[in-house]
């Protein structure tokens, strides 16, 4: 069984590529796991182009995942684009807890096309979409939406924990905007990976501990542990 926020390394089989690509686990059940793959380049296009029954090379679940204990204070899950994948899984698990915490999901994209509400089907938590062009939900970024929401919460905002996954620039902006307002911000980082087990030292970020592999020490980090919290130094 995997934990929300963990990922696996995937590659179509056979593939024109050498290195498996990290993908967040989007859901799992008895004998299956699902992933949401955005075709941004050749290896992801290979994956989405697979026919039903096509084969995939796949690693076991890797990385730390989101904190094991969350709540009872309220949670905001802020997803940008395909960053929604692990947040869906997290919400599912939280909803399955008896008396789990209050969960709200902020899901942002450029426009309605980029916000795949289907990916969140079946959740009971409140879902608050936003689009940069206003074509769906709140008109603005999910960062704006989050700030707006926290402002409305007034003093209660300080009890919130924010968990975010999405483009680095978005997560950086979110961290800068809300880390003073809320209890804690967790970010799920991305970086180009090869081994996924802390061996190649390809996927590092700087933390108080030093320069550590994202694949083993993360991908989820407490925002305040990250030295490059501007995150702009990250590649992605």
């Amino acid at each position, binding site marked *: 069984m995997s934990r929300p926020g963990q990922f696996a*390394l995937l590659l179509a089989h056979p593939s024109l590529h*050498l*290195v498996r690509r990290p993908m967040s686990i989007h859901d799992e059940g008895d004998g299956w796991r699902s992933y949401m793959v955005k075709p941004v380049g050749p290896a992801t296009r290979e994956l989405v182009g697979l026919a039903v029954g096509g084969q995939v090379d796949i690693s076991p679940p890797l990385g730390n995942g989101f904190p094991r204990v969350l709540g009872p204070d309220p949670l905001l899950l802020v997803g940008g684009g395909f960053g929604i994948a692990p947040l869906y899984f997290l919400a599912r698990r939280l909803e399955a807890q008896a008396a789990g915490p209050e969960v709200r999901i902020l899901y942002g994209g450029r426009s309605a096309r980029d916000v795949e509400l289907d990916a969140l089907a079946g959740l009971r938590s409140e879902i608050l979409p936003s689009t940069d062009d206003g074509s769906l939900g709140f008109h603005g970024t999910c960062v704006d939406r989050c700030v707006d929401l926290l402002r409305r919460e007034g003093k209660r905002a300080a009890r919130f924990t924010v968990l975010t996954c999405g483009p680095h620039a978005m997560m950086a902006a979110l961290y800068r905007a809300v880390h003073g307002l809320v209890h804690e911000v967790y970010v799920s980082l991305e970086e180009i990976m*090869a081994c996924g*087990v802390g*061996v190649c*030292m390809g996927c*590092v970020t*700087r933390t108080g501990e030093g320069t550590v592999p994202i694949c083993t020490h993360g991908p989820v980090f407490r925002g305040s542990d990250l030295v490059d919290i501007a995150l702009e130094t990250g590649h992605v």
Partner: protein
Amino acid sequence: MSEYPVQIGPARFANPYFAASGCFGYGLEYRDFIRPDELGAVVTKTVTPLPRAGNSVPRLQETPAGLLNSIGLQNVGIEAYLRDKLAPLVEAGGTPFVSIAAETMEEYARMAALLADHPSIRAVEVNLGCPNVDTGGDRDAAEARAVERITRVVKDRLPDRAVAIKLTPNVTDIVHLARGAEQGGADAVVAINTVVGMDIDIARARPTFARVRAGLSGPAIFPIALLKVWEIAGAVRIPVIAVGGIASANDVIKFFMAGATAVQLGTLLFSRPTLLAEVKAGVAEFLAARTLDHPHRLRLSRAGALEVGDPASAILG
């Protein structure tokens, strides 16, 4: 599965299948996939006199059948390595083949002395990725002399361990460097380290890596590595440990035919931890079909083309 013990200088290894430096960490990270005792040796991530934080990200970029890396030798430093990393690998049944790199003779001397205190270290690999020496006069010869001096400094302090010198392919004549290592008393040479290359991020209009140059590994460099191993094995009397692009048992068989004594699996382990098992089975099968008892029997003679047909006669010890 048959094991094929190999001797490298004073050290004996249970089999000739090693993990390459930088591709197996300090030996335990992959333990859920490969038990360290399944490998003849684990060449651990290169350690330097002091810890290094390495280069900025991105550090990796895939290329056709290859991987560029610009890790920058991130490592915990030799002291933390010896304190924290060595014993757990030995306890797990692994055979550490400790990789080191330094910038001066003094540092090499000091590192070798530190290693000498640890009897569990059977072998040391000196990573001369890019021999960084003054270039007065003939540069290749100068480099070969530097290789010889470094080798001697390390070997003198580790007379009862195997000392292997890992060479860069990015020179006009790698055989020169290999001879330098042999002259300096090396027990083996390791060929090859990564081939220099680069990539450009066209969307951002800049070199992908902050330091521009990166090291190319993976199947793309296999033909290059094979030639280097062939050339070195034909020129020195010490064992050659082959590394570069191994992706199948057939690649390993080619390295043995070219004259390798042992091989190291590198980049392909990242995507295919089952490679070790594939290689073991594939080589064993190839040998069995020819009733050969050890991969070293695969070494080709240099006399020219060999008899085709009868597999046993086709191969000269």
